């Protein structure tokens, strides 16, 4: 019983941190959602859905340093907005591959070594947002494929395909630049 009481004390501190984060940034989140959805209720729903995805993996949220939490939440909100727009337009953009790509691919396994920082930055700016979000969640926020699937609302297979596609696109981009 004591352990439960002490656990509640600790979770209350952490819960305060999450609600404080929300209170500090809620207007920012609303402005992002409203600018895309043009509907107040939909924008509020998008924020709720985004926070539901954040609280799925509370330990991940608190492992992120405070200055990186806002971009993390914005990535998830923009993904939720994208899903809502897709549902409204009734288009489905997710295609499952027949073979699951290897998600253990890392930078060293691919010929990224020959790309320069300027080339990589230019490449990333042209990358489709869905793929950019996935690669950022994997490398900057250290989420695994299951967690990325959870916060983006897609399948694990789709996550692995996006990551694999990014590395292949980097290789293709480099080959094109060399020509």
């Amino acid at each position: 019983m004591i352990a439960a009481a002490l656990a509640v004390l600790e979770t209350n501190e952490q819960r305060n941190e999450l609600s404080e984060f929300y209170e500090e940034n809620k207007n920012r989140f609303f402005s992002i959602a409203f600018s895309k959805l043009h509907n107040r209720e939909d924008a509020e729903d998008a924020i709720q859905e985004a926070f539901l995805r954040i609280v799925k993996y509370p330990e991940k949220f608190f492992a992120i340093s405070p200055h990186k939490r806002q971009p993390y939440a914005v990535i998830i909100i923009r993904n939720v907005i994208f899903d809502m727009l897709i549902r409204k337009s009734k288009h489905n953009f997710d295609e499952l591959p027949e073979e699951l790509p290897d998600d253990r691919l890392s930078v060293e396994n691919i010929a990224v070594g020959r790309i320069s920082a300027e080339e990589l930055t230019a490449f990333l700016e042209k990358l489709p947002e869905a793929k950019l979000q996935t690669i950022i969640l994997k490398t900057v926020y250290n989420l695994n494929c299951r967690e990325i699937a959870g916060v983006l609302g897609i399948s694990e297979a789709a996550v692995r395909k996006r990551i694999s596609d990014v590395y292949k696109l980097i290789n293709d981009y480099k080959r094109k630049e060399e020509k």
Partner: protein
Amino acid sequence: MSETEFNAILEQVCAANYYVPADVPEHRFSHRHNRRMKRIFKLYERNVRKTCADNRPKAQRPKRLTLKYAVVLAALIFLAALAGCTVAYFTSQDFRGEVHKEYTRIFPTNTENCPTAIEEKYYLPELPEGFEVYEAEQTSFNVYISYMNYSNRETIIFRQFVKPEFPTMHLNTEQCDFQEVD
């Protein structure tokens, strides 16, 4: 390019694309939204508790949590000591006992090769003044005699058992001594 450099560039791109400045208009959120956000925080609390229970190894427990546990444990021990929850134990050749604050429990030991029926009956050789026989019962393995002083209602009880049939006894020793005689 190393993985560190790759990650650093991604961080810069992330900050450039997903950072939102603070100068945005203030929005008045609906009651429905505020209610739902409260529920989300409660769900979050449950998930954190679950994650803490599953993952936290004892070695990584924060120091302040260890201190809290130590304080609570010390308080419990102190309260138990105040309540007088202490037990002493004794053993002799033929018996062992638990001495509690208000009573003593007696258990026979070394019961192998003991007679199963009383072979010789014993009686008190002398009685204090005023005491007379009050009750008497006997079986093959048990003798019970009680003596009473009718003027002050004090009693003396004399019991004889064979060891294998000796029952575990709770004797009232709250305000009196308990002595084993050979």
